[in-house]
């Protein structure tokens, strides 16, 4: 973390960048927030630890409009999003000085609390630099420990790898966190009967409160105005009065980002109701991989996206029924 701060100071001092986009320490042990730093003085609050899960690439849309360059800290998975935004002309590469920061898996406070840990006072072991395999959590109700891996976000268990797809320089070591297959969850649902599938999604989606956090956090959902906010399709809906509407919203949202979604996992991270929204996006990714060849959005900036491409031999839609 100190290395990032030192570099940020240098870049600010020599005028390479006008500001730094990173994270600021919060008032609880686990709530750092995305923040801009414009002076050396402000950088005293800079923090980079296991709770810095937010994908900052989307902030670069606005930062690209600002005067001067922005030094942005991107984790390996965030760089895919940045590339995808670059491909869609939403961010300006020349306005970004990308520091690829290392990652040893990001922590999920919801998951920690789900394991019965409450009244948290301090957390040890969340620093990116230390080698701790266990979190030591001091609470009002006593000290608890938790293996680091048990506190990680879902997305870190199926990590795409710790390589930055785009960067100006890299700071910090990474640690491999992948210990599960990315499509296993999807395959499990695919294997269910239609009734089970329906019941599963019904119970998950009925929690949706249409707060739009998934959409607003999503780097692929970068529309100036979402179709669900405009009256272009007569689809503007602020809340669901019927269970159908969440389905419509989430299916169309997933469809609109199909072939563009990098599977960064922000949607699931930010959902206040813990809906596994990545299951929608990942289903499309799995289908695309299987039907049209492996494709990872954000891996590059010039390949044709699967939905703006075709081959003469593409599968017919009837394959859906045949795959069983």
């Amino acid at each position, binding site marked *: 973390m100190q290395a990032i701060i030192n570099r940020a100071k240098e870049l600010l001092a020599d005028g390479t960048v006008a500001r730094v986009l990173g994270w600021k320490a919060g008032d609880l042990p686990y709530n750092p927030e995305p923040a801009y730093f414009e002076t050396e003085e402000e950088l005293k609050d800079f923090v980079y630890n296991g709770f810095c899960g937010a994908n900052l690439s989307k902030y670069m849309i606005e930062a690209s409009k600002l005067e001067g360059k922005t030094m942005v800290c991107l984790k390996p998975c965030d760089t895919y999003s940045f590339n995808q935004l670059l491909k869609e002309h939403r961010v300006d590469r020349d306005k970004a000085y990308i520091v690829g920061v290392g990652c040893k898996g990001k922590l999920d406070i919801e998951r920690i609390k789900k394991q019965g840990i409450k009244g948290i006072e301090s957390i040890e072991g969340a620093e990116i630099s230390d080698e701790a395999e266990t979190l030591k959590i001091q609470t009002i109700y006593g000290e608890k420990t938790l293996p680091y891996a048990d506190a990680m976000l879902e997305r870190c268990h199926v990590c795409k790898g710790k390589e930055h797809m785009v960067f100006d320089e890299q700071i910090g070591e990474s640690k491999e966190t992948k210990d599960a297959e990315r499509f296993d969850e999807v395959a499990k649902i695919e294997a269910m009967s239609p*009734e089970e599938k329906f019941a599963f999604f019904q119970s998950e989606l009925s929690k949706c409160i249409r707060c739009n956090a998934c959409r607003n956090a999503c780097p692929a959902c970068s529309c100036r105005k979402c179709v669900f906010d405009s009256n272009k399709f007569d689809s503007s809906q602020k809340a669901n009065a019927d269970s*159908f509407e969440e389905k419509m919203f989430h*299916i169309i949202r997933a469809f609109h980002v199909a072939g563009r979604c990098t599977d960064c996992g922000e949607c699931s991270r930010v959902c206040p109701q813990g809906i596994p929204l990545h299951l929608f996006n990942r289903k499309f990714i799995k*289908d695309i991989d299987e039907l049209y060849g492996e494709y990872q959005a954000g891996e590059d900036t010039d390949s044709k996206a699967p*939905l703006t491409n075709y081959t003469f031999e*593409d599968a017919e*839609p009837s394959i*859906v029924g045949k795959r069983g």
Partner: protein
Amino acid sequence: MPLENKEFKPKIVAFCCNWCSYAGADLAGSSRLTYPADVKIIRVPCSCRVNPMFILRAFEKGADGVIMCGCHPGDCHYSTGNYYARRRMTLLFSMLDYIGVENGRTRVEWVSAAEGVKFSDTMNSFVEKIYSLGENVRLGDLRCKQ
């Protein structure tokens, strides 16, 4: 056709591209090839004009089946439209299957302007399928069912 449930009259929306399938439907008409009146056709310039939102919208408003017809791959009036449509619909249908919507409520069929017979056969078999599946309860808005 087996009409076990006499009460059930399905609503079926068919999107047909102007150049092939709509003409195929016209040919079915002028050849007096019958298919059930449950099918209502919407004319679009090309199958690539069919937005997945239209399909979900139809289900929302109470449709029991949605079918999309376009030119055969390679014959699109706009060269490539149906290739894009094919990918879009494949993914959409796969997603509907994934969330537990019965297979067969949606279909894509390529019907040329010369295939009046295929058009009516397709509609007959699709309607039959929808009758066998019964009312669409998983994808509709309850307010439209009242």
